[in-house]
């Protein structure tokens, strides 16, 4: 209630200030305006910075122009797509889905635990929130691919290394998104439940989870979609799935097979995205 009241109170102010800002009447309405000299400096820094990045990234248009005909040739040589060994490809594709599903599920269980101390409105102690946030950010900052590289070294080649890679990275992202979802929940019902004298675990499971569930499930489905795409490339570092086949086909310049694999990946990713989008639409 206080939120909506604040919004309605702010609305006229926002409406009044926006046209003023656009008309450039010199009023400091949409925030502090930079003087012209500062504007020029900022523009110069941006341009020089971008030029530097282009240089560092070794952008070379000539190489692209020379390479394009060759790529076009690959497309010609890849037709018709190979139908050999489709059963193996299907198995590897299923493996990719399995890596994403198991990795996301493991991450979800851990994230559900971690989001309680990470969420401002649930944490039992403010001090606990800081290290948990650090842990989540660290896991989020390291990509599944990098984690998978480490786990291939630790547990050996194969999809299990991929599962662990996905799980660790997803734990970070999902824990953060879960915590943000929970922080966005209205305070009232939680307060009402707390004031019946019930303990924290009871309050969370009875008064918070039912209302937070659609948001949490939506986050989990989004992460699953993301992880299907991420799992595709894990095979490149030997962590199982269809990515391994992709790398083999490129290494052998076996273009018809490459085309088949790309079609399978596209079909797989699209199917999961569609399914997930539909489920999420029904959650509202």
């Amino acid at each position, binding site marked *: 209630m206080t939120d909506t009241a604040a919004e309605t109170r702010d609305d006229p102010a926002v409406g009044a200030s926006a046209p003023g800002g656009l008309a450039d009447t010199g009023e400091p309405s949409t925030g502090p305006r930079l003087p012209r000299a500062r504007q020029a400096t900022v523009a110069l820094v941006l341009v020089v910075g971008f030029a530097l990045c282009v240089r560092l990234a070794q952008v070379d248009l000539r190489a692209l122009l020379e390479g394009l005909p060759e790529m076009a040739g690959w497309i010609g040589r890849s037709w018709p797509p190979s139908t050999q060994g489709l059963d193996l490809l299907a198995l590897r594709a299923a493996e990719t889905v399995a890596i994403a599903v198991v990795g996301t599920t493991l991450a979800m269980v851990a994230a559900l635990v971690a989001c309680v101390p990470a969420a401002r409105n649930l944490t039992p102690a403010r001090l606990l929130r800081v290290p948990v946030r650090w842990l989540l950010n660290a896991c989020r900052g390291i990509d599944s691919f990098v984690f998978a590289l480490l786990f291939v070294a630790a547990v050996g080649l194969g999809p299990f290394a991929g599962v662990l890679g996905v799980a660790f990275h997803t734990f970070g992202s999902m824990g953060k998104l879960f915590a943000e979802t929970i922080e966005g929940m209205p305070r009232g019902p939680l307060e*009402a439940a707390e004031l019946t004298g*019930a303990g924290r675990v009871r309050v969370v499971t009875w008064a918070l989870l*039912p209302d937070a569930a659609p948001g949490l499930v939506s986050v989990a489905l989004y992460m699953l979609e993301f992880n299907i795409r991420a799992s595709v490339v894990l095979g490149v570092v030997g962590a199982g799935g269809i990515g391994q086949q992709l790398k083999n086909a490129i290494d052998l310049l076996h273009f018809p097979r490459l085309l088949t694999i790309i079609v399978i990946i596209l079909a797989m990713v699209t199917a999961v995205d569609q399914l997930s989008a539909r489920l999420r639409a029904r959650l509202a």
Partner: protein
Amino acid sequence: MTPSSSSVLQVEGLGHRYGTSTVLRDVSFAVAPGEVVAVVGPSGAGKTTLFRCITRLIEADHGSVRVGGRDLAALRGRELRLARRDVGLIFQQYNLVRRRSALGNVLLGRLAHLPAWRALLQRPGPDESALARSCLDQVGLGRYAGARADRLSGGQQQRVAIARALAQRSRLVLADEPVASLDPASAAGVLQALGTVARDHGIAVVCSLHQVELIAGFADRVIGLRAGEVVRDGPASTFGPGDRTAVYGPAPATIRTPA
């Protein structure tokens, strides 16, 4: 009312400052078992602050609050939780769990009493379910037991909240502006339901209202709050134009309403 050990609620010398402004100044009153008390006053008189100090959602600067003889200010953690079980609360915004059924929300009033395994598995058991169901019946919503809370009207949601407070089986219910968001007909219905269950069960009610018109037929006693001070405390039947002026200040002649 003289403070006595038989009071359900005893507030003494309660004071609270917010920054440099005094929100509550030396507020004292006691509520007897089964008594229905309306706290009236203009916006900003300190009604909400008073309620939040009583439940210790905010800490008072001075004074004490005793519920059933126990000083709430002295309690911490688990003890405070146990003491809060004895106070039912009703909020202006109902504060129901939106996606739970009406019955599920009433069961929240039993949450602290459920055995741990029943609470975790969300299986309240037949006794508690029957109790919750009877509470819903008493506010006239028995046939909405399975309806999701956010599908009910405002008046119905507030009656679910009354049933939730009733399910706590407490001797004291605090209601902070329970009908401020409702249309007049729903407001009257909600207050009637609250008054009825209070009298049927001998529950003391302290209820803040900003519409004085609603106290007739609902409250036994009216406490008037103005600028954080009690300016009127007496039977509802004697609340007259003089009291109204004491609480709200002189009414502008053009919109004066009969008291």
